[in-house]
């Protein structure tokens, strides 16, 4: 076997293998649930019920999914270029500054349909700029983008804490958060959309940035598979040598890809800030940047897969909050474990079952081939 891994048929490679990995991840998570003395099956039922059993459950699930679509796309775009952008958390956090500028500055003057596009641009721009330095260091100095983006996460957190307890803090409060935006800084909800399918969203914060996330997913698909730039990005990801030989500027592609990636993370800030809380709060990203890693790995860096994976994680977040009421031993930290296991089995160990699966499929194919002539002979009689 000179090749590290032989090729599987596409349906097994993109459907069956990820599914097996996912099942194993959830199986191990189930063992943890058992370990703390609860029933994994009951927990799963509670979780699905909490996430999809009511109108506001669905609203919350899709609200969380919105965050994860953005951060998942952020990680995926970088993956296509062979880069691991672990800094989605920081890029989203700092992207909140862009939203804050628009929301605080124009929220009282302009209607939402003007501030929204401005906020998209501002948050995307800030996120992109935050990814620029790591990108430049990777492209020019060869310092690993993983290390630099981790550092930038911490720097972003420090800056945001500094600003939120200082300049940005609303006067007359102790809480480290900005004042509530004016009406123009608040995005309309999507209650009408859910009422079309007969659900009442009540107070769930699902808002129009969910639609923006879907548009972003579509645009990322167009970018990666239907444009010249996307072709160059993928070439760079598959083989930097081939890309260099083909005259693709390494520095340019790395910087552009990372900035797109950062912009997608930055736009995540729109959802919790303009869509739900209408102010910038401490740690509003709440780990969504890291969930994006799991989402991108699970969705195999394809926008369609990412949307599905994001909804699954949205379900885990919303359902996980519901479980905590009935099973006090299981808190939202369970999601962190599941997230880690998904990253482990769908990411680092993605090839673990490949040789076994390959052997099983080959054996199946062989038995089929052996049985076919027998059938033909029977037919001839």
């Amino acid at each position: 076997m000179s090749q590290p891994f032989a090729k599987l048929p596409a349906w097994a490679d993109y459907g069956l293998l990820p599914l097996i990995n996912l099942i194993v991840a959830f199986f191990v998570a189930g063992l943890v649930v058992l370990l703390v003395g609860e029933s994994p099956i009951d927990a799963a039922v509670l979780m699905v019920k909490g996430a999809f059993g009511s109108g506001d459950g669905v609203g919350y699930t899709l609200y969380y999914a919105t965050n994860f679509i953005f951060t998942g796309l952020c990680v995926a775009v970088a993956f296509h270029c062979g880069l691991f952008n672990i800094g989605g958390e920081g890029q989203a956090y700092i992207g909140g500054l862009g939203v804050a500028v628009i929301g605080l500055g124009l929220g009282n003057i302009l209607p939402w349909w003007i501030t929204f596009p401005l906020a998209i641009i501002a948050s995307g721009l800030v996120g992109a700029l935050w990814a620029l330095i790591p990108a430049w260091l990777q492209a020019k100095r060869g310092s690993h983008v993983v290390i630099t983006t981790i550092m930038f996460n911490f720097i972003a957190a420090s800056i945001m804490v500094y600003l939120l307890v200082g300049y940005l803090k609303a006067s007359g409060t102790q809480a480290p958060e900005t004042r509530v935006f004016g009406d123009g800084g608040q995005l309309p909800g999507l209650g009408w959309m859910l009422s079309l399918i007969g659900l009442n969203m009540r107070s769930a914060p699902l808002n129009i940035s969910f639609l923006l996330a879907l548009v972003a997913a579509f645009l990322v698909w167009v970018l990666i598979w239907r444009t010249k730039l996307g072709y160059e990005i993928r070439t760079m990801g598959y083989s930097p040598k081939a890309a260099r030989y083909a005259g693709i500027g390494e520095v340019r592609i790395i910087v552009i890809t990372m900035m797109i990636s950062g912009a997608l993370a930055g736009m995540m800030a729109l959802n919790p800030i303009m869509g739900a809380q209408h102010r910038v709060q401490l740690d509003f990203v709440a780990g969504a940047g890291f969930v994006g890693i799991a989402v991108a790995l699970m969705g195999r860096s394809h926008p369609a897969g990412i949307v599905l994976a994001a909804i699954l994680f949205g379900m885990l977040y919303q359902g996980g909050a519901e479980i905590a009421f009935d099973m006090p031993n299981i808190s939202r930290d369970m999601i962190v474990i599941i997230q880690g296991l998904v990253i482990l089995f769908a990411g680092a160990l993605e090839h673990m079952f490949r040789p076994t699966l390959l052997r099983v499929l080959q054996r199946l194919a062989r038995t089929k081939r052996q049985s076919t002539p027998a059938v033909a002979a029977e037919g001839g009689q």
Partner: protein
Amino acid sequence: MDMFTVVLQVLDSTIRLSVPLLLACLAGLYSERAGIFDIGLEGKMLAGAFAAGAAATYSGSAYAGLLAAIAVSVALGLVHGFASITHRGNQIVSGVAINFIAAGTTVILGQAWFQQGGRTPSLPNAARFNPIDLPGVETLSGIPVIGAIYSELVSGHSVLVYLAFLLVPFTWWVLYRTRFGLRLRAVGENPAAVDTAGISVPWLRYRAVICCGLLCGIAGAYLATAQGAGFVKDMTAGKGYIALAALIFAKWRPVHAMFACLLFGFLDAIAIRMQGHPVPLIGEVPVQLMQALPYILTIVLLAGFIGKAIPPKAGGVAYVKER
């Protein structure tokens, strides 16, 4: 309080704060020198701290806690090895996974076992690593400056502190003066050459990962049973990443790693000390700036302003025997 005492106190807390960084940094050094990138220092340390806190609570012995911490941390290291050596998975992805698994599991198990919101019960002194007085504190106490330095700074730390600093020359010796160290460095630079010499690349790398787990476990035990008195949720608070930064800062060399960790520990100690105290001429320095400084310094280093950090050549790449 006079200036001398203040300086002594800051230096004393520098030592205390840099020990977990140093242990984790040396841990990363073994792993990365062998060509296995390890983002999972943080997670291993956290899981180790939890294991130490839990085991010390049940057994009442700090050493049982230490052993449990090492066992758990080595186990996580082996998971990392299994994913990245045996299955040639992405080392970064695997490290990230370990960090999340540790962050979640410690809280869930802590809550289920101890019902204190994810922390372990407060440990009595008998179940902790306590400060030990080095011989000669009494005799030297009469001497003005040296006596104070000896009793405040050199003496009066827990045994893990001395262990951590002794591990620096030990690591240097292992790395540069033993056959294992030579092979370890070689496998991080050019695994094919090691393979050609008839030495198993995976086994060598597994041993490096085990060393890494061992040291991370000690670091975790230090946090939970020496510096603190029990495990607290998210106890490591990014120390694993600072250790990683220190490793880059030290350019993957043991003695330099010690100085990098002392520098970052010093920044931390200063930040704690300066909270609310304005500095002459500059005014009050924001705490956040001090907290971010290790990261900023590392970025500046990586940008090439303070020399060049060249990682082990084969780092992050799984070794495929036949091509």
